[in-house]
């Protein structure tokens, strides 16, 4: 089969869009993991909370879309902080398996609470007309939403990098990720560092949730779990704990998925989720630290 150049470019932009969404989610995983060695399974469910909140603000309160996104970020961050305080902080010194099970439980709890309160029925998610239009660039049609997703993600990634590299809080975060005990001795307040990681992660997850909902046009209580898991795979491929790793991993996964859906025969594209996890197992087999990750020393 021969593809036109236009089609290939459109698919590449699609991949970039999807990859950006994964990158934003993966950063939340990586930030929290870097500091707490905790894989927060419930991270994906923040996407769902973010998109439901955005829908409520636009449909019920008739707020403009950008304002709704800002408010939904606030709601999601609040829930992220509640989860951290209620479920993860009491377990901070516990083995990683314990916190893993807890985060799994939190995830199931959030999903079913949402099912209970919001009903399991999927709802359609409308974005404003200016986002759902197509725009012609150099003779090729692109969806405005994809361009907006890519632009916004790039902006957020740059802002985050500046924050981590330049601000005092960012430096403290990196120090804590490097060695928690030493940074406590240096006067770093661990609780505020952990809170910051959860705030940034939840905010990015809310944005990613709205983007995801906009791409698919519908939302449901379980919508966050699988993208969340895939973003986790992205974080591992990039090297968990590393910010550029999470971004690169997200992009690799986004391009890979679009490649599957856009270029391979439809019989094969149903297997895309299997290939995501196959990729995870292969990466862990060949290079468990991922692309940018550092090997962790084990002290005897």
């Amino acid at each position: 089969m021969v593809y036109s150049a236009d089609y290939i470019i459109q698919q590449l932009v699609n991949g970039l869009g999807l990859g950006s969404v994964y990158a934003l989610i993966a950063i939340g995983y990586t930030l929290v993991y870097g500091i707490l060695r905790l894989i927060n399974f419930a991270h994906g469910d923040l996407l769902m909370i973010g998109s439901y909140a955005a829908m409520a603000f636009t449909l019920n309160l008739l707020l403009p879309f950008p304002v709704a996104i800002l408010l939904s970020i606030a709601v999601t961050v609040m829930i992220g902080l509640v989860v951290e305080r209620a479920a993860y902080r009491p377990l901070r010194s516990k083995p990683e398996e314990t916190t893993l099970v807890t985060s799994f439980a939190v995830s199931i709890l959030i999903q079913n609470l949402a099912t209970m309160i919001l009903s399991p029925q999927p709802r359609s998610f409308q974005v404003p007309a200016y986002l759902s239009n197509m725009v012609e660039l150099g003779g090729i049609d692109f969806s405005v939403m994809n361009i907006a997703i890519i632009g916004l993600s790039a902006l957020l990634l740059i802002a985050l990098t500046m924050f981590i590299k330049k601000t005092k809080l960012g430096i403290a975060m990196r120090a804590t990720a490097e060695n928690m005990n030493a940074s406590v001795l240096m006067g770093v307040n661990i609780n505020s560092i952990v809170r910051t990681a959860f705030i940034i992660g939840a905010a990015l997850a809310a944005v990613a949730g709205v983007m995801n909902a906009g791409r698919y046009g519908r939302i449901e209580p379980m919508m966050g779990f699988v993208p969340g898991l895939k973003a986790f795979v992205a974080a591992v491929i990039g090297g968990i704990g590393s910010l550029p790793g999470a971004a690169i991993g997200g992009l690799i996964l986004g391009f890979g998925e679009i490649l599957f859906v856009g270029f391979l025969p439809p019989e094969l594209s149903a297997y895309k989720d299997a290939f995501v996890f196959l990729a995870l197992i292969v990466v862990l087999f060949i290079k468990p630290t991922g692309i940018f990750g550092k090997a962790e020393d084990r002290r005897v």
Partner: protein
Amino acid sequence: MNKLLQLDTSRHTRLPGMKKPVLAVGVGLLILLLIIANFTLNDYYLRLINLVGINIILVVSLNLTNGYTGIFSLGHAGFMAVGAYTTALLTYPLARKPLLFPQMPEWLQQTELPFPVAMLIGGLIAVICSFVIGLSVLKLRGHYLAVSTMGFMVIINVLASNLTDITRGKSGISGLPKISNIWWVYALVAITIYFVWRLLHSSYGRAMLAIREDDLAAEAMGVKVVRHKMLAFAAGAFFAAIGGSLYGHLITSINPSMFSYSMTFNLVLMLVIGGSGTLPGAVLGAILVTLIPELLLNKLERGIELFGFQLPQMYGVSQVLMSAALIITIILRPKGLLGK
């Protein structure tokens, strides 16, 4: 090093204060109860009792990896699916097979095996899968292992949903012969518990416990870490497949979504609430977490009248309460109800 020397295997496995005659009387009473139950209870309760038994098999075998060896697997539902699908395909009555599976390869369409043989084949295929997956992930620790075993479950799920010629895809296979009864289920419960108990009291079991306590120290003492992890993983996979086969032939229909995240989560829930790393804990967890949602919480989901108030239908409330119970257990009693 001290930890390893202090390792006392007996407390993990032996029922406290129970001598052999007491055990024999207890088992005898249990058999008598099962016989009485089999002849007096209606189908709903019998099915529930069988479900309890199947969950005991699943949780006791999950305990081998997650509890005793300290390798945190989230792939149990995947192995269950392997067992359930294999057994279902091999025992499906020849007369109806071509109708239900017109696209199936001819040799499979012409095959009908007795239930125990099919179940054994299912178990062996699960063991082969566990080797393939184990060789790549068992050298990893903690959450990497957890997520890659979960990845295995997803892969099996995608295969079951898409190999429609054999599995009939998402609609699943229905009309399986109803074979799982109290005798099949509880005979296999006894075999599973006996096997796990014997394994733990062998040198293999002690090596597994040593790996859980401190894998570096165990390796330094000459324990072959990967080999013993593999053994626990494969044995767990085998019994997961057996449990899956029984489950399929109890419900009499299977589909991919039965063997997914919620199944994995429920099994982990049973193990952690009961007390992971203990045999009685695994059994108790399986019993409680099977019965409580079924007998109490499902009524809440349908909406009941409580103290004169009509509660609305609350779809999902049972999972909400169970996961909350898990979080509270982990925070207040991290070793579970029977853990020490």
